[in-house]
């Protein structure tokens, strides 16, 4: 009887430990779900708005990079994707679906709470909710990005449960972003506005 009880307790302990570990898994990369409109002046001189999505952005980076099968890559929101700057920030990266490493970075979201620039985020006492206005930087040329030293747009972001107060459960990041792109090749300037949210956790 004692042996049975001990065995039962051990099984319970193992189950509890396993369950607790699973609920505390901390994802830092989630599919980036974007819906927006790209504004551009057409050949007739009129401004036209073209709907774009995360898949448009993904294709604009993957296909020129020689990746034609978009199912092998993903565009992800990477919490703390940049750690090497004056102010660490999140990034939106292109990755292979089987690896967390960034093939390239679509957006860097920087300086939204940099005290040196007089900027601040609004955070609750539990550190589980944040509102912030970040500056969008793009560091290389593609249809919807271009290499520039200064920010090319802004992003207002609402984060819930991003800090590990509850093991990252129910993490939500939503936002609205707008940015402008310099003329490249035969393309005139483009201005994009849209909203984003997180999709499935990846890594």
């Amino acid at each position, binding site marked *: 009887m004692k042996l049975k009880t001990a065995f039962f307790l051990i099984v319970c302990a193992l189950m509890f430990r396993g369950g607790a570990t699973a609920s505390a898994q901390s994802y830092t990369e989630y599919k980036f779900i974007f819906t927006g409109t790209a*504004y*551009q*002046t057409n050949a*007739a*001189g*009129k*401004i036209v708005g073209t709907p774009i999505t995360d898949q448009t952005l993904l294709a604009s980076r993957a296909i020129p990079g020689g990746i034609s099968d978009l199912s092998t890559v993903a565009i992800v929101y990477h919490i703390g994707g940049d750690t090497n700057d004056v102010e660490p920030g999140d990034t939106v990266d292109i990755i292979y679906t089987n690896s967390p490493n960034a093939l390239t970075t679509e957006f860097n979201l920087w300086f*939204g709470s940099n005290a040196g*620039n*007089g*900027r*601040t*985020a*609004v*955070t*609750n*006492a*539990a550190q589980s*909710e944040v*509102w*912030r*206005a970040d500056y969008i930087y793009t560091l290389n040329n593609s249809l919807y990005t*271009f290499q*520039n*030293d*200064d*920010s*090319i*747009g*802004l*992003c*207002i972001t609402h984060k819930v449960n991003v800090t590990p107060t509850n093991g990252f459960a129910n993490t939500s990041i939503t936002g*609205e972003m*707008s*940015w*402008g*792109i*310099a*003329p490249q090749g035969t393309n*005139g*300037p*483009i*201005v994009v*506005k849209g909203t984003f949210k997180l999709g499935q956790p990846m890594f």
Partner: protein
Amino acid sequence: MKMTKSVVIIFAICLLSRFSAMGQAYVAYKFIFNGTAYQTNGAGVIVATPITDQTLLQSQAQRLGITNLSTISLVYHVNGGPPYGDTVDVISNANSQTLTTEFGLYFGSAYIGQNSSLGRYAVTNLAQTEQRRVDQVYTFSNTPYTYANSESLGGAFTCKRFLGDSNGNTNALIDGTLFWDALPTQGNAGPLLCTGRFTLGQPVF
């Protein structure tokens, strides 16, 4: 003689009114704003408070020592901050004088006299009557909703349309989204982030 003088006066009035009707291009319009201010309360919880253009006007009036809000207006001023861009100003209704600037919407595209490119571009139609742009938001004074800072504190996505009417007037239709943050100051206990939408009301001057 009296008759001739009257005719001249009437003709002059007609001429002036015709010129006024033909060439009027308004540059300032009432600024209509609806938004939300997010701030952490004493219990440590982020609370959302609705704000409007009147909230912003009130906060500037308080700083300026003006108690009668009917004597001032919050206006969107096209090219109010040359050469950088448009502004949102508090003006006197008596003489349209700018009393203070609430927002500078700057650097969304190249400006005259710019030494080096910031790499920012607006999209404009060929007829130069329509534009989409992303501007940086600057605030210049400490109020419950703004913070005096040399760097930008937010952004605005703006759609501008300029339409001529049959009288030759040029009217601006401008709307957009706007967000900015503010560090704590004496009138603002904790960090604040505001977001909302704006449009233009009646032309002012």
